């Protein structure tokens, strides 16, 4: 059985090649080639750039805080055209980490050509991959974004300090993919009025996406560090998740 496999595969590929070349010769227009898009993630705290170097910021409640770690998962990128058709990137999982510059440049290959009007993605890792066992790449638990005692990915980590926190520390780890403690959030971002993202083989447009750390702590639930300075999934994680739905904005697009 095993020894037949290569032969069958070879045959199949010959047939496929023949079929393809036929369909090409019948169709005068060659299939347009897909393109590449680079997403540029940029982290800010209100009007300031995020720094992990001891800058003090102030949240909506007036609490001071410093940030030492900021990481999150982005999954299942979708590019949407004006006519409503969508491109869903397969195997779409990225770990963005403020301390690793290369992680903030996400290059998305094989996007079908066309004019796109917006994109969406999930903050976190979809439930399917949370129950699928050992994964690799961005989803490798060795990246440190995984809970072993309550199996599942950590979707976002913000760590730091605040004088208002009871123990001085801030540890916001969100995660959990099951009701009632589901911290997965999908964000849908239309590009700025009238702007189109043109994808074609000859260019690599860049879309800048800005994440505002302040919005983790305001919006739906105002977070006071004196009351809440640590989450590890569960109900408190959902409070932060409800806020991070509005964390991202799309900025400019460049060639």
């Amino acid at each position: 059985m095993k020894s037949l496999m290569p032969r069958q595969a070879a045959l199949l590929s010959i047939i496929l090649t023949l079929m393809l070349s036929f369909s090409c010769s019948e169709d005068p227009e060659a299939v347009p080639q897909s393109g590449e898009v680079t997403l540029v993630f940029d982290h800010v705290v209100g009007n300031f750039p995020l720094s992990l170097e001891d800058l003090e910021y102030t949240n909506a409640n007036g609490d001071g805080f410093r940030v030492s770690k900021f990481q999150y998962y982005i999954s299942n990128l979708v590019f949407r055209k004006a006519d409503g058709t969508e491109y869903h990137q397969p195997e779409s999982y990225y770990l963005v980490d403020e301390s690793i510059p290369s992680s903030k440049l996400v290059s998305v290959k094989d996007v079908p050509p066309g004019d796109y009007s917006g994109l969406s993605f999930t903050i976190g890792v979809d439930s399917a991959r949370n129950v699928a066992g050992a994964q690799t790449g961005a989803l490798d638990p060795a990246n440190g974004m995984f809970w072993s005692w309550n199996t599942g990915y950590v979707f976002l980590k913000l760590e730091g300090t605040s004088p208002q926190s009871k123990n001085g520390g801030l540890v916001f780890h969100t995660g959990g993919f099951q009701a009632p403690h589901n911290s997965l959030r999908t964000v849908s971002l239309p590009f700025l009025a009238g702007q189109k993202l043109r994808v074609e083989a000859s260019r690599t447009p860049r879309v800048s996406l800005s994440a505002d750390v302040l919005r983790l702590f305001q919006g739906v639930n105002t977070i006071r560090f004196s009351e809440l300075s640590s989450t590890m999934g569960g109900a408190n994680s959902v409070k932060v998740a409800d806020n991070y739905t509005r964390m991202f904005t799309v900025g400019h697009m460049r060639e």
Partner: protein
Amino acid sequence: MSLSSFRLGRRYVLLCAALGIAACGSEQDITPAESPSFPAGFPEPIYSYRNNPVTEEGFELGRALFYDPILSKDGSVSCGSCHRQEAAFADPGSPVTQGVGGKEGSRNTPALANLRWSRAFFWDGGGNHLELVPLAPITNPLEMGENLSSVIRKLNRDPEYVQAFRKAFQHRDTVNSQQLFRALAQFMGELVSAGSPYDQFQNGKAEALTPEQKKGLVVFKGKCGTCHQPGLFTDHSFRNNGLDADTPQDTGRHLVTESPTDVGRFKVPSLRNVALTSPYMHDGRFGTLQQVLEHYDTGVRRSATLDPALDGPTPGIQLSQAEKRQLLAFLQSLTDQSFIGNKRFAAPRP
């Protein structure tokens, strides 16, 4: 050579070895349908091996890893230090764990068997996948105290392991955590216990159980079987069997769900090989099965989440002296000598 199923592979390899057949280089004439991959009477396994087909090399690698303290921070603790084969992979005599540096944990080491049929792991069910279970002991500071990237670095520095991983997973690359987890899952998955006198009795060998044990089986089915369902001897649910009246320090299932109705609930453990796995319960509070029966008979405490099956005018399960004797005899019949004596599950010779 990649084999599509381990049982297939194992028999096949044995056959080849025994007969020395040259034509064994091809698998063509073996039909998988003939080799059921699990014992009669067991349901379909949850962990199917679909993404992780068992091979001789993968199993042996998993076995080597299971017994290798390289997975711990200071090279002092292996999986096998806590999960001991002679005790059906529980930790005989230790109520709670001892990890690196002699640090004490808070829970009792459960026996390991028939793990492919479990949907949730640990006493509170916090683990949702067999492959990822090892991450918990490896990274728990009270158990192996290591971090995963460091384990992977150590394995990649060891030429013998790199070689073994390449063979088991058919690649020329570096070792990654998925391969570590899958090798361990192959070893753990093969730890099937279904050869006890109880099983022989079920398979038609009437004399496999003593008359006392047969009476015990009847009592067991009537009084214990809803939770410890014969077959796997668990119904995989989480229940409060009345160990504590007040909110215990270890709130069990509640730690996972945060639901108040889950306080004090723990996974119903399988009772296979239970005579070998003392001490008992999630915190190892009972040293003997006699004490366990006394607990069910007279020790069950009321609380908001006590299981309805154990609640009533007098909580618990009333047991006569005769019934206790019969139950004790029956529980002995769940001891599977072919399991604890299986050399394939023992620490490999260095």
